[in-house]
């Protein structure tokens, strides 16, 4: 049987995802406050930033889990 190794998420990547989530939480709270104050003009920019942060987090978390097999 050929030995296999899975791609593991490094602690650094997990830390980056955690930091991104904290930024998202702060961003959402700020945007909600602004919307409640009637300042809807912040929404397009905030959505763009949030989308970019989410894309990075999703990429780090869901990147390839293909098992690497040593060359025969």
């Amino acid at each position, binding site marked *: 049987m050929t030995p296999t190794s899975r791609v593991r998420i490094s602690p650094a990547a*997990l830390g980056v995802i955690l930091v991104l989530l904290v930024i998202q939480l702060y961003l959402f709270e700020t945007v909600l406050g602004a919307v*409640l*104050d009637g*300042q*809807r003009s912040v929404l397009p920019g905030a*959505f763009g930033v949030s989308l970019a942060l989410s894309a990075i987090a999703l990429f*780090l978390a869901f990147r390839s889990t293909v098992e690497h097999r040593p060359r025969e």
Partner: protein
Amino acid sequence: MTWWRRAFPLELAEESHFSRREFARFLAVVSAGFTTGIGYLWWRKKPLEGASDPEAKHAEVPVALGLAADLKAGQSRLFKFRDEHDACILLRTPKGELRAYRQTCTHLGCAVRFRDERLECPCHQGFFEVDRGFPVQGPPTRPLGAIALEVRPDGTLWAVGELPKPTLENLDRRAACPRDKHEVTA
């Protein structure tokens, strides 16, 4: 072994194992949830309940508030503005200026009242100053919604619209603040 283990003899090798990847995926999905929330706020054109809407498309219906001279310094009066649920408070500050605010506290929505030269939210001891409605003490962090006032030539006072929420940017530019254009000292 507990009774339910004997009743359901299923042994999963990693039943208590929660991998780093699963945790990272959970965090990433939560992050995407925040993005969805912001997208929903953007997509939803209608203001949130209780939110300020100074750019309302519908024409405001002015509301008569009686004679301006009837309200003495330190006194207040309640009124409804847009509908029967839109409770507002009209007050005359100790300086003699008339101000009107939404009565809904920006913390958790309790009704504020005018007491000791400040607007007080009795639920959680939040206080707002009366000149601009800024929170000065307690849990609220956002200013009260302000109502534009107008004194007509016959001396009657009218609520005519909603003012934009004051921000730190327009604090130093008082002349640019619409509230100051409607400064009422009658």
